């Protein structure tokens, strides 16, 4: 019986990624080009693209949960305020964190790897959704701050890459710096996935021994400006805030 369950999950996972890829192709090569044809204004196209991607991601998460390939629990959604600018900072244990988070927060901005902007399938949706590319580090900080100041919400993974299991979380200074410069309201998000799924350098077919459970916890908002005191300049503030965020998310995980 246990063996049968494993086979079910293996085939299910393979089928899932196959359909995921196929949908990606369909969206990238058919739906988005149509959107370019019919929605001329970039602003409206951005909203429509994000709504579409978020809906697609919601369907995927729902399907994966319904077929028991994963399970998912979200807590603290009441801290999310869609009417104001918030900086969402999450740890990054798996490849599908962004899929789950974008399904929960449809219109947020996020930063994508430069490689995505050159990927033939992902290039067009990413441009249409107007996500931020991490091409130049100096522009990146400024673009993120500008978007937040203009009232958008932004999702960042402060580690800059996927977490390494069993090692303490180490955030890069960039996210804290963006928060300080934009005087942002931060929404710390804890993603806890057990057993570990799709970690870095783990191929999709190495499925975990039991269905992974995602516990996503949105912590109460934190105002970056409270870390800016008169004695310590903004330079000190980025370290204090960064350390505070690291320990907030770490302690919520254990």
């Amino acid at each position, binding site marked *: 019986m246990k063996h049968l369950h494993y086979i079910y999950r293996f085939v299910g996972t393979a089928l899932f990624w196959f359909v995921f890829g196929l949908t990606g192709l369909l969206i990238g090569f058919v739906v988005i080009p149509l959107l370019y044809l019919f929605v001329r204004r970039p602003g409206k196209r951005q909203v429509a693209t994000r709504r579409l991607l978020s809906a697609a991601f919601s369907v995927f998460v729902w399907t994966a949960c319904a077929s028991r390939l994963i399970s998912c629990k979200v807590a603290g959604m009441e801290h999310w305020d869609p009417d104001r600018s918030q900086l969402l900072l999450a740890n990054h244990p798996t490849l599908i964190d962004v899929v789950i988070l974008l399904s929960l927060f449809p219109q947020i901005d996020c930063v994508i790897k430069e490689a995505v902007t050159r990927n033939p399938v992902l290039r067009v949706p990413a441009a249409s959704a107007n996500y931020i590319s991490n091409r130049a580090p100096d522009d990146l900080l400024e673009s993120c701050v500008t978007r937040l100041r203009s009232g958008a919400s932004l999702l960042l993974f402060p580690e800059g890459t996927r977490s390494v299991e069993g090692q303490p979380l180490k955030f890069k200074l*960039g996210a804290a710096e963006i928060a300080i410069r934009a005087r942002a309201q931060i929404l710390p998000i804890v993603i806890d996935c057990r057993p570990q799924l799709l970690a870095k350098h783990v191929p999709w077919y190495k499925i975990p021994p039991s269905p992974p459970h995602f516990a996503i916890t949105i912590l109460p908002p934190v105002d970056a400006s409270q870390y800016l005191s008169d004695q310590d300049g903004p330079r000190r503030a980025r370290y204090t805030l960064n350390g505070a965020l690291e320990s907030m998310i770490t302690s919520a995980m254990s």
Partner: protein
Amino acid sequence: MDTDSLYQQIKTILVEQFEMNESAITPDANLYEELELDSIDAVDLLVQLKELTGKKISPDVFKDVRTIRDVMGALAES
């Protein structure tokens, strides 16, 4: 701009913007290890150098920069 005044200007930026100890700054002091320049400072420094000299050091070149002497070398080449 001659080398000496460029060096003084960089030194001024490091002291005023990045709160470095003036006496610790020498042309060959390691910016990261001895002077505690962090990744954000490095980005800010690039922006300020561009304003100062009009030259843009590419992030790829800046990755190998360790000292103020290296910074001036990179500026001379770009």
